[in-house]
């Protein structure tokens, strides 16, 4: 029996808002990368504008967290949950910014830039998105093991980054890649690598929320 039905409902609604924000961010990464690979500047422009939705989500969740802190004065697991959400939305917002960064590169690209396809970039974006999805899943299901798995997955994304760097470096040496495109491609890979780092942060806050211990403790 609990006497905090309304509070519990508010926390559930807050979790749902976080998941929605996460979904939005994942979609934005996907579309931004597509705009880059397809050299589709129209799609890129749309994605740049969509970042506003992510920023609004962050603002709304932040406001709701502050309202709950003010009214409910949460402690223990509730305090950890709200603290974690406040930290996680910052990471999601940064991920959203990196999606925009990728879309902006598409806009900067000249039509004359010749695309150079690297399979690893697809693997890298799939893994980065998986990391975000699984971090959010571990949050919803209170799954400590899954959150720990996400932390480990960062190595795969890092390996992809180094593999792409090697492929691009070889292509430069062999003059198989457009110089500008090589720079853009490496920047995209770096943004994806940073997205992986933020997904790790998400998982670390999930671990804190569940176990009360942050990795940096």
């Amino acid at each position, binding site marked *: *029996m*609990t*006497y*905090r039905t309304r509070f519990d409902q508010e926390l559930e609604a807050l979790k749902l808002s976080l998941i929605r924000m996460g979904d939005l961010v994942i979609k934005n990464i996907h579309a931004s990368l597509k705009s880059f690979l397809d050299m589709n500047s129209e799609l890129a422009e749309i994605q740049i504008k969509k970042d506003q939705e992510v920023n609004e989500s962050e603002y709304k969740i932040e406001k709701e967290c502050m309202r709950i802190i003010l009214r409910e*004065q949460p*402690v*223990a*697991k509730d305090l950890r949950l709200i603290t974690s959400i406040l930290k996680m939305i910052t990471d999601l917002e940064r991920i959203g910014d990196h999606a925009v960064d990728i879309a902006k590169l598409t806009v900067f690209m000249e039509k004359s830039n010749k695309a150079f396809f690297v399979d690893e970039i697809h693997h890298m974006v799939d893994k980065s998105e998986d990391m975000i999805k699984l971090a959010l899943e571990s949050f919803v299901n209170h799954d400590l093991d899954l959150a720990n798995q996400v932390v480990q997955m960062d190595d795969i994304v890092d390996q992809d980054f180094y593999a792409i760097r090697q492929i691009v470096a070889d292509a430069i040496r062999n003059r198989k890649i457009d110089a500008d495109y090589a720079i853009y491609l490496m920047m995209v890979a770096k943004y994806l690598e940073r997205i992986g780092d933020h997904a790790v942060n998400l998982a670390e806050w999930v671990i804190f929320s569940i176990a*009360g*211990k942050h990795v940096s403790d």
Partner: protein
Amino acid sequence: MKEKVFNIRNLNLFYGDNQALKAIDMDIMSHEVTALIGPSGCGKSTFLRCLNRMNDLIDDVTIKGEVIYHDKDVYKKNFDVINLRTKVGMVFQKPNPFPMTIYDNIAYGPRCQGLKKKKALDEIVESSLKKAALWDEVKDRLKDSAFDLSGGQQQRLCIARAIAMEPEVILMDEPTSALDPIATLKIEELINDLKENYAIVIVTHSMQQAARISDQTAFFLLGELIEQNDTDIIFSNPKNKKTENYITGRFG
């Protein structure tokens, strides 16, 4: 330097056949505020009263176990209870000044102990009222009745009265539950100052108060000490599910 003031071991208390405290083990440290929390009837006030043997005044009480105060069990025969109560002062939920002047309220204890010199009493009254952060508000009206003071002032007077006996420990049983928020904050600030010199054990129903002012928090439930730990840990990451359920309000 913090040191152990009370060492409570396997303390059991019965009101008739009803067991109100079950095998309590706890240490009370000097220069610390220890908060006792838990639902009504969980035994926290009963435990508090064990520390200066206030339960002696209740009929049909049986106490088993040890309450060691500086290497001596306060429940051993021939233990000097009067001396214990001077060293372990108490402040109650409702301010209870004596029906006399502000000055006489403070001087009452020292006088009972035989102190008669006016100068010495004046000094005790002034220093006690200063320590209780009340001196500036009453220094010009020491001959007024204590009942002329506001509730918050009366409570600080009661704290000053306890301090006048030069105690080592101050027990407080919900000392702010009858006070408004400003008077409450004054008492809380005072408690923070007082721990420089005393060990303080406080019973409170306000979780926020326990989180604000205490160093250690002990959670009682149905006569058992469920968990005692650093206050920061209790309110951020309690180890026991029962503690978590209680402090997060999911208790039934």
